[in-house]
Each structure stands twice: as C-alpha cells, then as structure tokens.
C-alpha cells in the first residue's frame, strides 16, 4: 500500500462519523435501486415459473390464430375452437394423446365474499397427468355439474374445506361443491392467482363456450419429433389455427403478464435515480465541507511534497471507499426494500405475485456500480478544489473565506436560464413535449449552476420572518447566506425532490380534472361497472340482460373496450350501441353520425381525426387480434369532450366489435330509469339482480367519478411516497450539512454561550437555520414543479384547451411536511450544538 493510500484509508476511518450520513445517503439510494431490481426480477421470475408449471408435460397447444398475442399486459382472447377439431387433431399421425381444454378468467366468491387474488382467478377444466402439473392433495377430481377443485393455497387462505360451497362466475355463474384440493407442481398454488378447476362441460358452461373449447393440448407419440409434428398439424388444420410449442405459449403468456412489470421497473428505477441524484448533492456537500475543514492539513501535505494529483487521488480514493461501503450496505438493505416496495405497489393496486425474492448477479452489479459511480462523480468537484489548495495555506492563521462563484459560472448559468425559460414557454405553446423535456433539463442545469447565487438571495428574502426570533433568528439567516455553495447544494437537493412531488401532484390533479370533465356528458342514472381491471374479466353479457329485464329500467346501453395495433403500437378503442347511447349520454358529433357506424365503420375523436388528417368517408387501417388488418370507414367525427366521456378516441359499434374481437364482456352498462322511479329502490333492485357476479359494481355518477379519481390517486400516492424517499435523503442532507458546520462554528457558538445565549436560544438558532433551508427549498421546489407541470400539461393537451388544476390542499401539505421535516432535520445538530462545552468551544482553534 502506498503512503497516500494508507493516508486515504486512515482519513476515511478517522472521519467516519462525519461520513456516516453520506454513507447512509448512498446506502438508501442504492437500496432503492436494488429493491426495484429485486422486486421486478422476482415478479418476472415468479410469473415465468407460474406459466411454465401450468403447461408442463404438454408438447403442443392448438388455438385459434390471432394477429397479436397480447396488448397492454393482457393476453388477447382467441376464438373458441369447434368441438370436432379435437378429433381432427387426434387423427394426425404422431399425436399420442389430446385434451380439450376450457380455460379463462372468472371470479370466486366464498361465503358471499369475493376472493380477490393479486392476479386473475383462473377457471379451467381438469386434466389428468401427464397433461397438467396439477396434483390432487385431497379429495378427488371434479366430476359433474356441481363439483370443483380448488388450489390448496387459496383454500388455506380462505379456510375452505372439502364439502364447502363456493360461487364461480365467468360468463355464467355456478355454485359448486369443493371436492378436491390441488397443488401445482411442487407448490400449494400459483403465486398470483386463485385456480378453480371443473370438468370440461362445466367449464364450457361457465365460460359460455357451448360445445366449443378454448384450446387443445397435444402429446407427441414416443419418438416423434415435436417440430415436425407441429408442421404436420399446421398443414392439416389450416391457417385459422395456430399450433404453438407449449413452452413458447407459456413464455408468451408470461411476457404478457410481465409487461406491466416492465413499466413498473422503469418507474421505480427513475424514482430511485431521483433519490441517487439528491444523494449526490449531499455527498458533494459533505466532501466539500470536510475538505474545507481539512484545508490546512491538505496544505501541509502539499508543503511536504505531495503533488496536487496525489491530493486529488486521495480524495477520490476516500470517495471510492465511502461509495463502495454505502453501496454494499444499500444492496443488503435492498432485499428488505424489495419487500417494502412490493407492499407499497400492491396497496396502489398493482398485481404482483407473492414468493421468495430473486437476487441476480446483475442486480448486485448494477446496485454496487450505481452507488459507487454516483459517489465518485459527486466527489469530483470537491476533489478538484482540494487539489488546488496551495501549500502556503498551511501557514495561514484564519479560515479561508468561502470562495465566491466565478464569473464564468455565472455567465453560463444566466445564459442557460435565458435559454431554458423561453424554450419552456415556447414548447408549452407549441405543444411539444420533447421541447418541454429539453427546456426542463436546461432549466435544472441552470439552477444547479446558479444555485450559489440564487439560494442565498432567496434565503435573505424567505428569512425575513425568522428575524423576529431575535438574535438567534438573525444569526440563522446569516449562516445560510454565509456559505452560498453549501446552502445551494442543500437547497437544490431538497428543492429537486419537492419539485418532483409538486409536479406529480399538479399533473395528477389536472388529469383527474380532465377525466372528470368528460363524465358530465353521461346522463345515465346508474352505471354497472367491472370492479377489477377491465381486461381481467369484464362484465358477463348476462349482467346487461338481467338489468334490461328489470321493470324500473327504461334504457340500457353498454360499452366495451378492446386493443388494436396502430402501425405496431398498441392503442385502445371503445365499442358502443349507436342506437341507445344517445339516450344515456350527450354525444356531440362534429361530422357524420353515430348511426352511420354500421359494422364496418369507426368514429374518431376530433383530435385523432386532425392528427391523422382523416375526414368522413376516408378509411383507417387497424389491426385487430381476431382478424388482423382491416380497413375501416370513417363514419363520423366526435367532439373531444364526448370521446373523453367514453374514455377512448376510437369508437366502434358493438356489431363491428363482434367482428374483430372474441371477447364477450362489457366494461360499463349505462342504465336510464323510468321517470318517477325512486333511485335508491331501483339501485337495490339492480344490485340484487347482479349479486352473483361479484365484479359487477352498481354506481351512480358521483361514485363512478370517484372510482376513476381513486385509481389516479392510488398511482399518484405510490409515486409520491417513493419520491418522499428522495426528500428524506435531502432532509438528511440538511442534518449533515448543519452538523458539519456546527463543528466549524464551535468557537462562535462558545462565544455566544459565554456572552449569554441560553441553550434554548442556541437550539432555536440551529433549528431556524434548518427550517430556513427547507423553506427556501419549498419555495424553489414548488415554483419549479408548478412551472414544469404547467408546461407539460400544455404540451400534452394537444388541440384541447389546457386544463391545469392546482391541488392547493396537497401543495400546502407538501409545504407543511417539508418545513416540519426541516425542523426535524435540525433537531440533531441543534442538540449537538447545545451540548458543546462553553469553555472547550472558546478554546478551539
């Protein structure tokens, strides 16, 4: 070990208490990164295993062909297969055995209560080994119309025993007796789902298949090559059927389920990145302060012959040690963080499977590298300044004054700011989201560069009221102004976190306002909506039938949703009944008409028509899962507010929908009551009529709006909580900076105490400084967050009027939490300052 390295190591160890909070900041940031990776890896891994297990033992699967497998995380539903196809498959040479399968999603009710697993409830037909991985653990296989086998895990969780009755609903609803409990592979059940198995006819009835089946599973005869058999089957059955290797089919299913996890991973890693960036400010500040305090020691080293390169190296080495130690700690914490994140994500309504955590080598590598690299980068600036310490400073008696920001830096900052502000305004005006992104990035860089100038000025301004506290307040304000670079770093870190939170809250509030705006068009008295995620089983068509038969009901209209491919990108559409819809909603057409839809037409929202340059009579190419690419006639153009009310910019008729989709479920049923009917009585009747379809929720307009708002709020809540993490790190930064500057100000504190400042006054002085730093960050952060949110909303609004809804209550809550957080951040340094011995402090050199 070279002497410089030995010195580096000694320094790191000697200053470990000063570096402790830095270590913690690195560790927290890395824990977030590692937790995100572990959680998403685990979820993917569990889903893979789940789909592999359920198709184990089968060689090939025959299904209807589809233009695409899945959209937005949901597998497309395929047409059922005709009953006689099983025999045709069985007759192909090389096929040893076949099994007709009925499978789909449903709901499960136990003792009148809906069982809601994280994922779908799988309804399937029972198969004997070797076709399935199901293995009975108790009872016997289901035989006949009232028998069901349940997975052992769900049975245990719901305390269901053999002989109990459960209600299973899909297209139809059946009450069945539990005759067996099954495991799946070696497990008690699936990580994410409840599994309900019945015999084939019951499955066909539940899923509304009639005599048809969902898919056919094939076992190849001994010695027959599976790829060859697959080709022969394809040739024998024709192109409307798809023959898939079962493992591929399982992988495709898993991929569909994993799509939402990929989004989650991106969001989580972005938020973890925010935490790391905030941590980087804290790290830079700590190194800056510690090195300033050690300036004389560094000068001595230089005087003794150390080159500035060696000094630089020693500081970077110290950063490396802290970075590695923090990353290692953070990676260990990451496993715990993964569990916490899973809980948080679930409480926000995300379906994530349960199971043991998966920690991969790449997770460890990424987490370690992220923490170490961030620490190193953050320490580069302080290290360069340390390397510039001149040897003569060893002889200097007084502390060097904090260096003022250099002119070049200021010019750069103002130029960037001068570019960023007009760019943001222009981008908002021109509806360019890319422009807003660039403007935001420029603005952030400008603010970081100008921080040392802006933060003290803002502190002087915001600190006015603090002066009322008398001398302690006055001194608190002065301390924040005294070291601009330090204050700027602390403020910027917190402001960044708060800006992101207020950005999300304004964005969320506005999205809520936008989504609520459309609902005014709906005039229906009551709505029946699917409670779960629409695509995990909507409302059975039975629901609309029963509602329609109620005497109090005047008009029933329903809406369905589907996905289509728009030049490769997944998009959504809605299907409505052109005849009944105008009776339950005020629809404004700007061209053409709804009634012109027919079964081959489409109505576009005005914004979509403009974007695509389409008019009534033109055609639009759309790719559907069932029948591939089709040309649709533009039958009309709808006002954007009306499209908003239907939650889609592309509208088909129900007849058209039936041509392109196999799905037979409704998303929403709009109900208009007879004149003079008591709404609460009608509502009770409706509820009773659909009671055995647990996902059918009867709501009035207000509840429907609240339901939509709640979904948005859940997501905003999750993001806010995770951003709160970055704010926590920033608050740690205040604690750290203050604690370190207390060390610097020991003599001053000793003097104040000697002259008569009480401990209470001293504590308030330090706390006031912390609160002031937080307050400056609050002002900066909220202004920044609001500005960016407005620019983003303007850019996203396209041709629609810009809707900005500022959630004042939430912003006030952010202010309160941040200021109280600042107060809390000041507690520890305040205590430390108050505990300083007066005499020892005065005597400090």
């Amino acid at each position, binding site marked *: 070990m070279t002497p410089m390295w030995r010195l580096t190591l000694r320094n790191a160890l000697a200053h470990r208490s000063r570096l402790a909070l830095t270590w913690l900041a690195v560790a927290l940031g890395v824990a977030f990164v590692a937790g995100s990776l572990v959680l998403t890896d685990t979820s993917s891994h569990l889903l893979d295993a789940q789909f592999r297990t359920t198709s184990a033992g089968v060689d090939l699967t025959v299904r209807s062909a589809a233009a695409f497998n899945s959209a937005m995380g949901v597998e497309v539903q395929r047409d059922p297969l005709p009953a006689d196809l099983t025999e045709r498959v069985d007759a192909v040479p090389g096929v040893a055995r076949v099994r007709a399968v009925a499978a789909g999603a449903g709901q499960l009710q136990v003792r009148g209560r809906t069982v809601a697993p994280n994922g779908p409830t799988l309804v399937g037909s029972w198969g004997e080994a070797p076709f399935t991985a199901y293995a009975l653990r108790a009872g016997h296989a289901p035989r006949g119309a009232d028998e069901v086998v349940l997975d052992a895990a769900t049975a245990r969780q719901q305390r269901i025993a053999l002989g109990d009755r459960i209600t299973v609903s899909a297209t139809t609803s059946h009450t069945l007796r539990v005759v067996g409990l099954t495991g799946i592979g070696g497990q008690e059940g699936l990580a994410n789902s409840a599994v309900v198995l019945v015999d084939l006819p019951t499955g066909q009835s539940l899923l509304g298949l009639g005599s048809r089946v969902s898919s056919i599973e094939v076992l190849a005869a001994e010695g027959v090559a599976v790829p060859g058999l697959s080709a022969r089957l394809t040739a024998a059955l024709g192109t409307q059927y798809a023959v898939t290797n079962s493992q591929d089919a399982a992988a495709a299913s898993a991929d569909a389920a994993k799509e939402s996890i990929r989004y989650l991973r991106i969001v989580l890693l972005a938020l973890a990145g925010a935490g790391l960036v905030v941590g980087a400010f804290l790290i830079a500040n700590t190194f800056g302060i510690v090195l300033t305090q050690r300036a004389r020691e560094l000068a001595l080293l230089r005087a003794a012959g150390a080159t500035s390169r060696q000094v630089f190296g020693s500081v970077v080495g110290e950063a490396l040690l802290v970075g590695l130690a923090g990353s290692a700690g953070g990676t260990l914490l990451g496993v715990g963080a993964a569990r916490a994140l899973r809980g948080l994500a679930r409480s926000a309504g995300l379906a994530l499977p349960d199971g043991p955590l998966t920690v991969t080598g790449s997770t460890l590598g990424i987490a370690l590298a992220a923490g170490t690299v961030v620490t190193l980068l953050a320490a580069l600036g302080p290290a360069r300044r340390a390397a510039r310490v001149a040897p003569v400073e060893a002889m200097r008696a007084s502390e060097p004054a904090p260096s003022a920001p250099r002119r070049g830096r200021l010019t750069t900052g103002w130029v960037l700011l001068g570019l960023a502000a007009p760019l943001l305004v222009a981008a908002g005006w021109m509806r360019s989201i890319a422009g807003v992104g660039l403007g935001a990035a420029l603005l952030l860089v400008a603010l970081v560069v100008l921080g040392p100038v802006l933060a003290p000025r803002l502190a002087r301004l915001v600190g006015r009221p603090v002066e009322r506290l*008398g001398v302690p307040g006055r*001194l608190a304000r002065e301390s924040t102004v005294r070291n601009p670079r330090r204050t700027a770093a602390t403020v910027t870190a917190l402001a960044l976190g708060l800006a992101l939170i207020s950005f999300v809250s304004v964005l969320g509030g506005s999205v809520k306002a936008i989504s609520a705006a459309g609902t005014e068009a709906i005039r229906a008295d009551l709505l029946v909506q699917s409670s779960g995620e629409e695509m995990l089983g909507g409302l059975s068509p039975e629901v609309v039938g029963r509602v329609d038969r109620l005497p109090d009901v005047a008009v029933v209209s329903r809406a369905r949703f589907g996905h289509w491919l728009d030049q490769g990108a997944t998009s959504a559409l809605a299907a409505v009944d052109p005849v009944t819809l105008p009776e339950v909603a005020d629809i404004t057409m700007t061209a053409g008409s709804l009634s012109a839809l027919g079964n081959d037409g489409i109505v576009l929202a005005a914004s979509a028509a403009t974007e695509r340059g389409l008019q009534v009579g033109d055609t639009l190419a759309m790719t559907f899962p069932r029948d591939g690419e089709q040309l649709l006639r533009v039958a009309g153009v709808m006002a954007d507010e009306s499209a908003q009310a239907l939650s889609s910019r592309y509208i088909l008729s129900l007849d058209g929908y039936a041509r392109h989709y196999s799905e037979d479920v409704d998303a929403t049923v709009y109900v208009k009551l007879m004149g003079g009917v008591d709404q609460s009585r009608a509502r009770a009747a409706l509820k009773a009529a659909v009671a055995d379809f647990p996902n059918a929720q009867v709501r009035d307009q207000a509840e429907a709006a609240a339901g939509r708002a709640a979904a948005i709020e859940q997501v905003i809540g999750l993001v806010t909580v995770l951003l709160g993490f970055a704010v926590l790190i920033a608050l740690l930064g205040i604690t750290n900076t203050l604690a370190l500057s207390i060390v610097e100000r020991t003599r001053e504190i000793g*003097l104040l105490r*000697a*002259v*008569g400042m*009480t401990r209470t*006054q001293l504590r308030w002085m330090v706390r006031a400084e912390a609160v002031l730093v937080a307050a400056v960050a609050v002002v900066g952060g909220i202004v920044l967050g609001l500005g960016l949110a407005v620019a983003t909303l303007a850019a996203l609004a396209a041709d629609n009027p810009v809707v900005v809804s500022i959630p004042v209550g939430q912003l006030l809550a952010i202010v309160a939490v941040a200021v109280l957080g600042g107060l809390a951040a000041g507690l520890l340094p305040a205590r430390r300052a108050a505990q300083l011995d007066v005499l020892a402090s*005065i005597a400090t050199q």
Partner: protein
Amino acid sequence: MTTIPAITPIPAPEPTTPGRATTDHTAPGHAAPGHAAPGHAAPDPTGPIAARAVDVVKTYGRGEAAVRALDGASVDIQRGRFTAVMGPSGSGKSTLVHALAGLDSIDSGQILLGDTDLGALSERDRTLLRRERLGFVFQAFNLIPALTAEENLALPLTLAGTRPDPVWQAELVQMLGLGARLRHRPAELSGGQQQRVAVGRALIARPELVFADEPTGNLDSRAGAALLTFLRDATRSLDQTIVMVTHDPGAASYADRVVFLADGRIVDEQVDPTAESVLSHLARLDAQVGG
C-alpha cells in the same frame, strides 16, 4: 532573593462553612500585602467586594492523569478596581477566572458574585447571569463574523430581548473611538478595533464584573497599550470592576492590584504594580515553584 512563605495572602474566612453567602466588606484577616511584605495587613485596597472565591478546588481528569488546577484558591475582587491575575502557565489562573465567571463548574468551595452563590445556580441561570451581570473579553475571536460591530456591541442585550440605552451606547462608542466603524463587519476591522468592540460589548450591559482573558495577547504593543489604558480608565471613571488574566507584566502594570497564582493557590499579591515589580515577583515565584 528572599524566600516567600507559601501562604495564602487572603486567608479563607472560616473554610469550614462554605455555605456562607454574605458579602463581607471587612472580612477578618483580609490582607492586602505590600510589595515586599506578604501577610502584612495594609488598609489599601479595601472596599466593597464584587466577587469572591472561597477555597475553590477544581480537578481535571481522573486517577493517574488527574490534574488539580485549583487547590483551595481563595480571592476577593474589590468593586471598582482593575485586578490582574498572573501566574506561570499551569498555575490555574484561567481556571480561576473561568470559575469566577460561571463558565466552569468547581468541585468544592464557593464562588460568590455579589450575594449570588454560583454553585447553587442551574446551567440556564448561570447563562442568564453571564448575560446580565458579567462581561467578557477574550484573547481572540471575540466577535460574531455575521454581525456588524454595532450588533456585536449590543449582543448581550439583544440576546436578552432588550436594547441598549442609546445614551450609554453613544458614550461607549465615543470613548472607544468606534463611531465610523459601527456598520462594519468584524472582518473589516483591525485587531485593535475588534478588541475595542469586544470591550464595548463587555461594558454595554453595565455588568457588575468584566473578565478579560489575555485581551491584548493578539495586539501590537500600541493597540494593546490603548486598550489597557481604556480598561484602567473604565475602572476610574465608570466605577467598573475588571478582572484580567495575563502573562504579560507590562499589561499587569496597568492594574490596581495583581494576584499571583501558583499550583492552584493564590500565593501573593501586589498593589499598584509596575512592570518591574511584577517581573521580579514572577521571577521569585518561578524560583519557588522550581525549588
């Protein structure tokens, strides 16, 4: 060189009753030895007592490493007089003054400021006492860098939530010659000006007692002389009581009385000292300590 008996010139009045809290203007055995005759009672200086240390013991550290900084030190500080405390390094002079000023706790004995027993006070009350009844001048770093000279001057009063009497402040500023510098920060003041602001701050609340710890240690001789002259004049014209710790016989010669410490006790004192008399006294003390 005559050998000085190692006795305390100011015998502690009845050391067995340390709880005694009266201010005794004419304590029995109160001695004011002349230059050459320790133990010899003299009428001068007498007068009201501003502060008093009685049999004070203070130990730092524990066990083997324990150092007895004060070992039964007793001293009276007369009101309206300029008292210098001298002694070789390690003699306990700073500890004594810190104890008198309520900055440091003591192990046994008693510290009285007027009628107040410092030992009976809480930490907070001692802080308030410092703020209201005492003034301080340290060797260096006397001023808060973030505050102007004027704000530093008023600090003890503003900390207490009051304002200085404008007439008194103007008088002080005028006497200290700080008029033009009031709005400046400490960094913009010379060392002498900084110390004068510190003296002004010490006097602003008209404290019963001002403690100065090597106030001229960091000043050149001219600035030092001006400061010491001011301190002496303050005792004369303002009837201010001042206690100064110093190791400089020249500085001590400005005092009305010099108290010598060695090994944690008061071993001698001089009234109306000159630099030469102090120097010769110190030389004798050194010899005694060394012997």
